[in-house]
């Protein structure tokens, strides 16, 4: 019985199919919103699914001299990492697997795809892939440090490293976004950097490095990579919703789900708006901003939280 329940959790609810559906839904909402910002109609609801099916049916070619095994394993490893990260995140208060310290585990699992992206760049021996891979590492350091510092803000306020505990503690203290607005903004910037979305899509800027590390990927491998990107985004949004907007576990399940969906939609709107408004910085400008502005700000935010807590 326990085995079947575990299987259900793994494969159906917080596990594979739920996250894939959420990933596709996120991509559709994001593209539709972006289209509306640009006075376009935008794709039909089934477009992300159609893209995925198309990619999986496409021929899978590999540049000569590329490391074939590594190329196939990388997307699968990052997919499994992101899926397991999704298991620990409470969805509208429902947390089957949460334990003390799962925030740190999630942070680690969420950065596995970025490193896999770098390795993919090195493995597929192409000029643009090498450039893209190098840039993704450069960008990794400039947003990861501020992200980790700001994420630990809510943990310090709630006095625990378990996300479920953090979101439940917002019941009495009120949502952390009110106390740490700067933290929320930095977390959003960190998430955009991690997802390599528009303002910080330097590793995959089509006009400079064509496709970045994914230039040589085709067919099912590219399909998996898109899936990884989408699910990583969904997990990131759930994380932000839980850490900063705590209303979702106030009352009984039904309204909690409604509120949780609204919170996630709000974060999606913020993500789309930033991708529509901001231009792509040069990699050296980003590194400069990363160390000169983001890190001090996040330290300031953390210091403020610690002082307020004591």
């Amino acid at each position, binding site marked *: 019985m326990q085995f079947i329940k575990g299987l259900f959790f793994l494969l159906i609810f917080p596990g594979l199919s739920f996250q894939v559906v959420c990933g596709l839904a996120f991509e559709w909402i994001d593209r539709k919103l972006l*289209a*509306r910002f*640009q*006075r*376009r*109609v935008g794709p039909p609801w089934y477009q992300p699914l159609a893209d995925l099916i198309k990619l999986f049916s496409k021929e899978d070619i590999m540049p000569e001299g590329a490391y074939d095994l590594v190329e196939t394993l990388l997307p699968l490893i990052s997919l499994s990492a992101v899926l397991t990260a999704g298991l620990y995140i409470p969805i509208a208060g429902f947390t089957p697997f949460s334990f003390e310290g799962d925030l740190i585990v999630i942070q680690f699992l969420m950065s596995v795809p970025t490193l896999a992206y770098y390795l993919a760049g090195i493995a597929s021996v192409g000029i643009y892939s090498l450039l893209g891979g190098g840039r993704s590492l450069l960008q990794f350091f400039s947003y990861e440090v501020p992200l980790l510092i700001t994420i630990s803000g809510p943990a310090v306020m709630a006095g625990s490293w378990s996300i479920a505990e953090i979101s439940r503690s917002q019941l009495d203290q009120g949502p952390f976004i009110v106390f740490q607005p700067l933290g929320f903004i930095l977390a959003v910037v960190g998430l955009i950097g991690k997802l390599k979305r528009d303002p910080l899509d330097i590793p995959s800027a089509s006009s400079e490095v064509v496709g970045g590390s994914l230039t040589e990927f085709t067919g099912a491998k590219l399909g998996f990579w898109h899936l990884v990107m989408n699910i990583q985004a969904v997990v990131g949004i759930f994380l932000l919703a839980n850490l900063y907007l705590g209303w979702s576990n106030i009352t009984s399940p039904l309204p909690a789900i409604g509120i949780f969906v609204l919170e996630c939609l709000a974060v999606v709107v913020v993500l789309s*708006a930033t991708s529509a*408004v901001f231009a792509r910085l040069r990699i050296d400008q980003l590194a400069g901003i990363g160390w000169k502005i983001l890190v001090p700000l996040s330290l300031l935010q953390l210091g403020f939280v610690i002082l307020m807590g004591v």
Partner: protein
Amino acid sequence: MKVMRRRFSLLNAIFDAVMARPDTVGYPFGELELPEGYRGAIVIDADKCTGCGLCVRDCPADALRLEKKSRDEFRLIHYPARCAYCGQCEDSCQRGAIGHSNALVGATARPRELIVVLKEKNIDD
């Protein structure tokens, strides 16, 4: 307020964009309205055409061909795929027999649609 509006002009632009109706049309389901002066498919007024060949001479894309046995035995052929839809034949024709309709010319896979006999007068080799 002016500085604010100019400072976040892009933010205002996307806000207005969301409010305004999107201007793209769901291809291929949306309707396509072409201006009346649009140079579309070639049409001919058969009884006005006397087979003089002025249009064939002036066609820059070599899309018109005249097979002429004698004054009254000729056949005028048009190749839609080769035509550049520039309207020169319409100008060169003294009798206003040939011209453009407003119909959009789509691609076709059927070879017989690529050779259109515009006018045939008692010639049948």
